[in-house]
Structures are given as C-alpha cells and as structure tokens.
C-alpha cells in the first residue's frame, strides 16, 4: 500500500512539474521542444500498445501519423473547415483507414506482419509524395491554422499550445493506463505471450488485435493532427520510415511493454538530441548501437530494467526474511529439544 502511494506521489509530482514548467522557464525554445516531445510521446504510446503489449511490430506507424497530419491540414486549408471539426474528422479518417488496413494486415503474423506494414508505410509515403494535386508533393502544405478557440481560450501562443498538447498527452496516458489494467490489457498480453494459447482458452484474437491496431492508429493520428497544427507546415517526410524508426528508438530506450517507457524514452532522447545538436544527422551513430545493445542486454529498456531490478531486490528480501524465519524456527526447535533433554 505504501508502495502504491509512493508511485502515486511520483506521478502527481511529475504532472505538477509539467504544469508549472512554462512558469519555471521563460525560454520559448525549451517550451517548443517540450511540446514536440509530448506529441511524439502520444504516438509512441500508440506503438507501445501494439508492439509492446500485443507483440505486433507495426512499421507503418509514421504513415498513420502522416495521415492524421495531412487529413487535418487538407480539411483546414483546402476545405476551409472549422478547426475542431477537422480535428475530429482527421481522427476518424485515420482510425477508419487503420481499421481497413488492420483487417488485412492482421491476417499475417510475426515477420510477415512487420514486412507487410513496412510496405504499407512505403505506399502511404509514396502516395503522399506523388499525389501532387492533393498533397502538394514534395513542397508540402503550408499555412495550417493553429488550434481554434474553445470559448474564450485561444491557442496562438507557445504556452497555450503547450497546455493543449499536455492535455491530450494526459488523456492518452489515462486511456492507455485504463486499457492496460483492464481485462482487454490482459488479453493483449496473453496474445503477445502465445497467440495459440490465447485462442485455445477462448480469446477472440482477431477481434482483439484489430481493436488494438485501431487504437494504435488513433493515437498516431492524434499525434499527427497535433503536430500539423503546432508546426503549421508539413511535408511528406513525416510519413517516411525514419520517423517510425525514431519512434521505435524512443520506445525501446524507455522500455517496450511498460507504461512509463514512452515518457522516459522520448523525453530523454529528445533532450539528448538537443544537447547533441552538433551531431545532427549523425546522432543515429550513437542511438543505433544503443538500440541494438539494449535489445540484447536490456530488452525492456530503462523502465523495464528498473522494474526487474526492484522485483529482484524484493525477491532477495523475501528470501532473506524466509531464511531468517527458518533459522529462528530451527533454533527454537533446538532449544526446545535441548530443554526436553535436560528435563
């Protein structure tokens, strides 16, 4: 119980810190970086549900991110739609496309699924890149409006955007938390551990996988839509495979299949990347080997490593106390035996 309270306290402190962060620093650049990191975290959570909890590595995640971003951009700039209406529509479009692609791609398993989604990702990228009349091709889309007003609240300053993204991030974390700790979450983990076994005990694996896939694309679309209105310029690059690899790196470093992993990995790596600005395109020279080494030695990343460490220590303590108890019992028996002898 004390442990749970401690965990709750930590989370409360973190949220509080995130809320007061813009007051601590007046540096708009730092707020910009943080907002961007939050957007990536939302996308990483989507990837985590699918790859981490269900065991299906989707390499089309950046494609869905781009679909969310382009849907919002096209609806607001070309169709002149109200921002929030376009926002909701963008999420629906991404989820419906996710449903259609999921229906087909989830028929495949393991390697085939990874390769299939890799190809789907490429198709999405190439269509965006080549469909000049709709998406503007390599020139991209400019002049995407910032989020529309909600009543008296306006979103045209960096700080207000920061809070908007933070709101969606907390919403994402809450939803993912609820899913993981529900029966559905257990079901997904069962599918990851052994799909055949899950099927044997009566789990409808096809339906469950499809639901996770759609939720995963929904979060990718949400992150994409927020990205489009935050940066206000998008190009086909955001759908390229390198973005998927970036997201995957954040997830692996933080801890795949853990709740805190996406936050830890993304914020850590975004900040490290900022510190290593001079490396620019070469940062993967460091992150690439880290990714490989982590998978070999700490497959569950920082967060998973910490959880394992704590579990081990607890086990050790338990063993120690068991041992002490046993010794006490033995010595007690000995003394009683000795007293019997004497008596």
């Amino acid at each position: 119980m004390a442990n749970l309270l401690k965990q709750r306290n930590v989370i409360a402190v973190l949220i509080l810190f995130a809320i007061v962060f813009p007051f601590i620093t007046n540096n708009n650049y730092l707020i910009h970086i943080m907002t961007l990191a939050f957007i990536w975290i939302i996308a990483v959570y989507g990837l985590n549900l699918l790859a981490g909890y269900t065991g299906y590595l989707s390499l089309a995640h950046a494609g869905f991110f781009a679909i969310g971003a382009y849907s919002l951009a096209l609806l607001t700039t070309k169709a002149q739609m109200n921002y929030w209406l376009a926002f909701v529509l963008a999420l629906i479009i991404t989820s419906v496309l996710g449903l259609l692609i999921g229906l087909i791609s989830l028929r495949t398993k393991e390697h085939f699924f990874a390769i299939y989604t890799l190809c789907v990702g490429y198709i999405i990228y190439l269509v965006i890149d080549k469909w000049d009349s709709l998406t503007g091709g390599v020139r991209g889309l400019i002049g995407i409006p910032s989020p529309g007003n909600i009543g008296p609240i306006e979103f045209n300053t960096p700080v207000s955007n920061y809070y908007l993204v933070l709101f969606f991030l907390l919403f994402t974390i809450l939803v993912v938390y609820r899913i993981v700790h529900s029966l559905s979450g257990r079901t997904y983990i069962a599918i990851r551990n052994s799909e055949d076994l899950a099927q044997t005990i009566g789990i409808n694996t096809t339906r469950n996988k499809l639901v996770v896939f759609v939720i995963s694309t929904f979060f990718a679309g949400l992150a994409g839509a927020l990205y489009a209105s935050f940066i206000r310029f998008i190009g086909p690059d955001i759908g390229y495979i390198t973005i998927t690899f970036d997201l995957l790196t954040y997830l692996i470093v933080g801890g795949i299949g853990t709740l805190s992993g996406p936050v830890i990995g993304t914020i850590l790596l975004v900040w490290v990347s900022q510190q290593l600005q001079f490396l620019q395109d070469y940062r993967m020279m460091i992150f690439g080997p880290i990714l490989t080494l982590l998978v070999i030695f700490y497959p569950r990343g920082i967060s998973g490593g910490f959880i394992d460490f704590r579990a081990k220590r607890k086990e050790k303590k338990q063993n120690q106390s068991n041992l002490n108890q046993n010794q006490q019992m033995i010595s007690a028996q000995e003394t009683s035996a000795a007293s019997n002898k004497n008596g």
Partner: protein
Amino acid sequence: MDILIQQLFNGLTLGSVYSLVALGLTLVYGILHIPNFAHGALYMVGGYITLTMMTQAGLNYWIAIVISCVVVGGLAVLMERLVFHPLRHAPAIHDKIAAIGIMLFLEALVQFIWGAEYQTMVSPYGQVVNVAGVTLTMQRLLIIVSTVVVMIVLYIFLKKTFTGATIIALSQNREGANLVGINTNRVAMLTFLISGALAAIAVSLSAPINLVFPGMGHLVLTKAFVIIILGGMGSIPGAIAGGYILGFTESLGATYLSNDYKDVIAFVILVLILTIKPNGLFAKGGH
C-alpha cells in the same frame, strides 16, 4: 515493339540486381528465420566501398568489387557474431529491432564518412552497343551476364560441395543438422558471409547505372522482402524467379502505367499477395 523489347531488356537488368539482393536475404532467412532489416545497409556500404576503392585507391573495377565483397561479407559475419547469435533464443521482435539498430548505425556512419551527397560511379564499361535495333549499354549487359555467372557458381557451391550441403541441411532442420555433427555456428557465419558478398556484388554492378547515396538501401531492401515473400521465404529458386518477375513488372509498369508510381507497384503486389495468402506464396506448412 522496339519500346517493348527495350523495356524487357531493362526489366532483365533490374531483375538481375533484385535477384542477387533477394538471394542473400533468403539464404539468411533460411538459416536463422529472421528477416535481416540491415541487409539494405550492407548493400549501401558495399556501394561506397567499391566507389572509394575505384576513386581514391585508383583500383581496377573488378578488384574493387572483390575488396567490397570481402569487407561487406566480413561486416555481415561480425553482425551475426555480435548481434544475431546472442539473440537466437530471444522473441522474434528483438531480432528485427536489433537489425534496425544496425541499419540506422551504418547509414549514419556512411553519411559521416562520405557525406549525404549523391555520387556517381563511373564504370569502365560505358560503351553503347546496338543489337538488332535495341540500344544497350555494356554495363547493363554486364549486369545480366555476371548475375547469371554468380547464380551458377552459387548453385554449384550449394549442390555439389560438402560445405554447401551443410547450408542446405541447416536450413531444412537445425536440430537435425546439429545431430549429424554440423557446426551450426560456422555455417551461420558462412551464410552471412555469402549474403554480404552477394549484396556487394549486386550494388557494385548496379551502381554505375544508378547513384550512390546513404538511403540507397531502403527501397532495394523492401523490394527484396517483396521478392522473398513472392518466392517463398527461404526458397532459393523462388528468390531468383521473384526477382525477375518484379524486374519485368516494374519496367513494363513504368512504361505502360505510370512512371511516377513505378515504385508503388512492388508494394501493391505484396499487399495483394499477403491479402490473399497471409503466409506468402508457396508457404510450407508446419514450420
């Protein structure tokens, strides 16, 4: 009619390169049952090694290719030893992520050493020949002929030599191969060596008609995946046939459908195949 013949010829060239890359990929898949996402990066490194040997060291084209084969083959063996071997009992998702890590590293490294610019490789076989009304460059002819030679050599090696037979044995049944005394570690390393060398040959032959740049492996790799799914994961004749099928489809598609979307064709083929047969064409049951 002339255009058709010209395009068929182009398809043959394209297909040759695809087949070589897919062969390396399928060999590794047959042995370790992992899709090597770093194979495209090996292909790209091979291109840069050949280019550097020719421009900086001033070596002959063929010697440069041999050096490139050795370097890339060595790199592939190193990868097997340091990464895939320790991960052999890990869940399938780990191999893929590890391979992606290697790929990202190699790309960044190459960009660091050679820069991000597009570079051209000048081959000594730039002459144009005219055969029966069709204009061909020597380089394209060379690609077709060399590929056939490499394939024949590989075939003889796998079918007629003892070492080759151990590779086939391991791909059929790992435990069985172990039981009859085959050193699985050695065979796995050998397979990676061959796979790397094939990638180096493919890129050295095709680079003079394309360009050399850090991202050159992406499309080739994904297309090679399409091919080995088309031809059956781990199947050697399948990889060869699949490579040529894709080569012809692309070159004809570029002429008669749309040049812009020619790269999409491969992926659409794959999506169609996996939609109808989720385990790939020619899937063997009970793996």
